[in-house]
């Protein structure tokens, strides 16, 4: 069973503090959507609202045709996976997995059969009689996953499920989570602060800040076409250069930066460019050159750091500090006068905010 989840204009408060403002998300049936953001951005609050541990001040939460908004948490039928596993310490692995089935008053033989079957799927059937304290972190999280999946919920929710695991295991587990979610076709809401994790397993990602969704899109779109400066910075567009269009001829636009430098940009590559805009580039998107004929932003190089695949320079330009990566083949000395030319493949056009 799988159902779409929709949050419609949800606002929530902690006491008098507003933690979510007019939040709307639609997660399609079988889709995995991540909520991504720094701590305090409202991602966990959103998950707790859907789970029923918090009540929204206004707005509605629906799962398929069912209005969850005023339903008590124990009647919502949602599979939850917690950061700290939240296994029942006094129950065996099998009893942990069977707990939800017991609440549904299934015959005990059926409970055992389904719990064991689920444990087999996560590869832990041989540990069924152990207590949670005897398991490793990865095994605990597998049990938690099995416990959430065995009730065949129409919605699965994950609250930073991998944050307590070591780096190698994190990658393995996220693939495993994605495979199980895909195989069951369960709708999923996944909360994380790890960008790589969110981008790697999600159909779509909602980047959140201060209780609002800044952009909800596929990982590819977020990575290449951020909608605003917050998202741009979040996905690594470290340089935000305000520009004003001076001249247009066909698709080619000539724009002036603060300090007087002119840049030539193609709308064919970058999309429509308004008269006033911000050019966002990653450090890799600025080509460093000491060729005096190159067109671009004149810059004085500052501190050089070694990244392994490139040198990174702090640059002083007429429009402020910029960060650019230069090739390992031609290192420049600090204080060298260079020109920074944007590479359109690594640029995005943003509206002035």
């Amino acid at each position, binding site marked *: 069973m799988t159902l779409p989840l929709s949050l419609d204009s949800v606002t929530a408060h902690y006491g008098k503090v507003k933690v979510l403002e007019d939040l709307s998300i639609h997660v399609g049936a079988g889709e995995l959507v991540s909520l991504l953001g720094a701590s305090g951005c409202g991602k966990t609050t959103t998950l707790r609202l859907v*789970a029923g541990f918090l009540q929204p001040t206004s707005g509605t939460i629906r799962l398929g045709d069912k209005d969850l908004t005023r339903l008590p948490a124990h009647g919502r039928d949602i*599979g939850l996976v917690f950061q700290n596993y939240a296994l029942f310490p006094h129950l065996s692995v099998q009893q942990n997995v069977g707990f*939800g089935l017991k609440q549904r008053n299934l015959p005990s033989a059926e409970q055992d059969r389904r719990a064991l079957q689920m444990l087999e799927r996560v590869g832990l059937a041989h540990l069924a009689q152990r207590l949670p304290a005897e398991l490793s972190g990865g095994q605990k999280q597998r049990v938690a996953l099995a416990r959430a999946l065995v009730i065949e919920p129409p919605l699965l929710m994950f609250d930073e499920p991998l944050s307590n695991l070591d780096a190698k295991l994190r990658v393995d587990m996220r693939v495993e989570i994605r495979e199980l979610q895909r195989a069951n076709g369960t709708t999923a809401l996944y909360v994380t602060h790890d960008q790589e994790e969110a981008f790697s397993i999600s159909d779509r990602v909602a980047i959140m800040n201060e209780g609002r969704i800044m952009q909800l899109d596929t990982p590819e779109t977020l990575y290449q076409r951020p909608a605003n400066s917050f998202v741009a910075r979040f996905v690594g567009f470290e340089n935000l250069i305000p520009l004003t269009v001076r001249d247009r001829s066909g698709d080619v636009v000539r724009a002036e930066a603060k300090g007087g430098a002119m840049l030539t940009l193609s709308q064919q590559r970058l999309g429509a460019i308004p008269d006033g805009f911000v050019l966002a580039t990653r450090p890799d998107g600025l080509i460093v050159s000491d060729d005096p004929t190159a067109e671009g932003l004149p810059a004085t190089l500052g501190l050089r750091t070694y990244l392994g695949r490139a040198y990174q320079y702090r640059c002083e330009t007429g429009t402020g500090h910029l960060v650019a990566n230069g090739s390992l083949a031609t290192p420049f000395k600090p204080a060298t006068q260079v020109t920074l030319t944007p590479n359109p493949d690594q640029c995005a056009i943003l509206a002035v905010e």
Partner: protein
Amino acid sequence: MTTRLHPLLIVLTALVYVFLLGPLIIIFGASVSDTTFLAFPPQGLTLHWFENIWEISAFRRTIVTSFQVALLGTAFALLIGIPAAYALNRHRIQLPAWLSTLFVLPILVPEIVIGFSLLRSVNVGLDVPVFTTLLIGHTLLVTPYAIRVISASLASFDFSIEEAAISLGSHPVKTFFTIVLPNVRSGVVAAFILAFITSINDVSVSLFLTGPGISTLPIQILAHVEQFFDPTIASVSVLLMVLTIIVMIIVERTLGLTVIAK
């Protein structure tokens, strides 16, 4: 490899043990002494003074009263203390910090004051029977201990475990009994023992609240000592000591003594 102990350390340690255990050994010796006064070292050997406890009706009655008050008072303290400790820990963020202090305030108020104020307001003021007032006094006396010990146990309880159970379809009330309580069991047992022992040993509160025909064992011991100086008192003390040791052995066997040390 063994570390060589300084001889002075051994002597000091021995002295501490003598200081702690000495009085207990003297009491034990005195309780079997075949004399009509408290004597140590014991002269002769008799169990007469143990028989004597059951022959004095005041001891029989007060032992029963003490047990009734301690068991009921502790039961009430747990009935109040478990929900209070749960609420204080579950909603720690939303609740003001002084609230948990408020619940342990009776520990800080001198017991004499609690006894006297209950005598004035409840026993005399409201004309409540002596036994009931005594029970209220003991409940009041031991509830803060129950809250403290159970709170300590709940402080290390991860409430997302409770949320996991609820999300799997378990009603919150049922979740409390099937998930929360089994995980703070040792705290509840420790609270029970601490409250029970505090109540059984109490003199200050009981002193004010005992009345005609109703008294507790410690008060009876005081009254007896004022009139007689025979080894019966030593025998009663030995019985109390044995009772405590039995309780401790049960605790050690089932939970480990660390639950009380915590």
